[in-house]
């Protein structure tokens, strides 16, 4: 049968394509980053400057990244965990030491982010972007003030079935604890019971739990309110020309995060990884990164100044009122993680 013969041919070609990738392994860099978080122009610029071929792969949560690395997925040279996951990866011996401090562009890093709490001697990580986690509302036709976590966790009837929530407990439960005024990394079953009740109540209004599709869903009106990150929400507002999209800085507080570049143990192209990390600490490149992602730059304001898109300086999303408490998620104990897991399973039961 002729189809069979074609299939065999196609299979041979597919196998050949799989192996051809490794022929040029010398000048390569495998970059594993969050979805929609890598400016293509910068990658192109890096490729032109160094001759290194970059392959970008994406993930949707810190947990996915950790699980992938834990499962022994080697082959990634640079990955981008948030602060609490940098701590985990260091303590688990999952990272290569890199000489960040010795790099020529290290001087551009803002002093506040040198030797950060999650990597006190900065032997493993270099800054990428920082921002906050909260939620956004399409204010068009919405009559709430857009300033409280109450609007997110106890949505009004107008938002029924129009809410999108991130799909990992790690990004949702800290905000819920903040709203309820309970301690973070909570090990108390009574407290977590309250969180569970709150989330179950919220679920009546939830359309989808997803950490990737909020831009599309907010833009086409599938949802009116969604979990969001500050810069991504700003990008959403500008790219989709949605002036009515408001990123909420809740008065109860906001979750802060800081993403870093790290090199996983056994990375095949460590030298290229270091080249890339230094490249990203260059003032102009760092500014372009923020111009693309719309997140605040961890580089010195004086260094990035001229290259930074001026709209970033005044954007409502990334300029937080100093009276609003910012909480940086830390690494929770196994006991707390187990409770979070229970709450989440019960939520999606």
């Amino acid at each position, binding site marked *: 049968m*002729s*189809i069979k013969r074609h299939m065999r041919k196609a299979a041979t070609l597919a196998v050949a394509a799989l192996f051809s990738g490794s022929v040029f392994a010398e000048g390569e860099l495998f970059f594993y980053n969050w979805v929609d978080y890598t400016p293509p122009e910068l990658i192109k610029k890096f490729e032109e400057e160094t001759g290194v071929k970059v392959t970008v792969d994406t993930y949707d*949560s810190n*947990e*996915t990244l*950790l*699980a992938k690395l*834990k*499962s022994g997925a080697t082959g990634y040279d640079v990955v981008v965990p948030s602060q609490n996951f940098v701590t*985990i990866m260091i*303590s*688990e011996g999952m990272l290569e030491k890199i000489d960040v401090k010795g790099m020529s562009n290290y001087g551009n890093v803002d002093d506040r982010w040198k030797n950060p709490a999650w990597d006190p001697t900065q032997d493993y990580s270099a800054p990428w972007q920082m921002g906050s986690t909260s939620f956004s509302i399409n204010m068009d036709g919405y009559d709430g003030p857009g300033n409280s976590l109450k609007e997110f966790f106890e949505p009004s009837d107008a938002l029924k*079935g129009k809410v999108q929530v991130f*799909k*990992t*407990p*790690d990004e949702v439960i800290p905000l819920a604890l903040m709203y309820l005024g309970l301690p973070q990394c909570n090990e108390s*079953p009574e407290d977590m019971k309250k969180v569970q009740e709150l989330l179950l109540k919220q*679920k009546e209004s*939830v*359309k*989808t*739990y*997803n950490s990737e*599709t909020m831009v*599309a869903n907010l833009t*086409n*009106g*599938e949802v009116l309110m969604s979990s969001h990150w500050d810069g991504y929400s700003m990008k959403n507002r500008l790219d989709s020309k949605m002036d009515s999209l408001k990123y909420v800085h809740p008065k109860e507080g906001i979750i802060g995060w800081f993403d870093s570049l790290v090199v996983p143990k056994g990375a095949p192209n460590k030298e290229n990884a270091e080249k890339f990390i230094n490249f990203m600490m260059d003032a102009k490149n760092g500014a372009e990164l923020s111009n693309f992602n719309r997140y605040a730059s961890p580089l010195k304001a004086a260094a990035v100044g001229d290259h930074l898109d001026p709209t970033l300086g005044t954007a409502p999303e990334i300029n937080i009122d100093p009276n609003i408490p910012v909480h940086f998620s830390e690494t929770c*104990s*196994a006991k707390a*993680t*187990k409770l*979070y*897991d*229970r709450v*989440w*399973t*019960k939520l*999606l*039961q």
Partner: protein
Amino acid sequence: MGLGPAILTIFAFMVIPIFILGVFSFMPADPYGGVDKGFSYEAWVQLFFERDLDDSLIFDPVYLQIIFRSIVLAVLATITTLAVGFPVAWYIVQQPAKKRELLLFLVTIPFWTNLLIRAYAWILILGKNGMIEKPLYGLGIIDESLELMYGNLAIGLGLVYSYIPLMILPIYASLEKLDFGLIEAAHDLYAKRYSVIRKIVIPLCLPGIIAGCILVFVLSLGDFISPSILGGGKKMMLSNLIQFQFSSARNWPFGGALTMLLLIMVGIGSFFYIRVLGKREEIK
């Protein structure tokens, strides 16, 4: 000799990974993913019981409910694909040889694209202002969204669409071998259409039907793209639960136990298939 490579492949890529998962399910969980050394049946206890604060065990159906829902959904998907797939296979088999090859080829086309991408394509079709809603708005037939996405309908459509070729192909294969003379003979003997199908067609192509049903059932049971992308991820299915254990929950032993359970269920299904076929051979 000839089977050597096949056995080696199955051993290396199936038996060993399953064995590792099985072993993992009897080890304590490392809080950051992976497992610690030692022996523990905690993961298997967790399937049925919740540990209270004082360490006493309380029966807890939360995971069983998720498993039960997955089975119901997989059964529904199987019935629907059979209802749609059988007539399609029947139609194809009655076409002239040239056209038949073309039609079969068309049935396999969806397999050329990644399942994930096909799921996203459904978002474009079912979503707000998507390909279904837009013309209806334009014609004034609807004035508010049909809310097709993010619900059981979308999950069902996704599953049926994804796996229907796996129902059509085996049924086609068995229909192709069917001696149409038998059907003519039945008609000559005044059998009604219904009894022809029930007494001749279905029994003769039963192996194809069962094979199709098992393929669709097993894959639907393990599918996590449809529930999480098209269904909105509001209700976990067995596969989402397994994925969750390996990612957020960082409880690999429990993920392993759930996977073993899934395998056991699939194994029971296949066992019955072989039993049914074996019985038929005996009768012959």
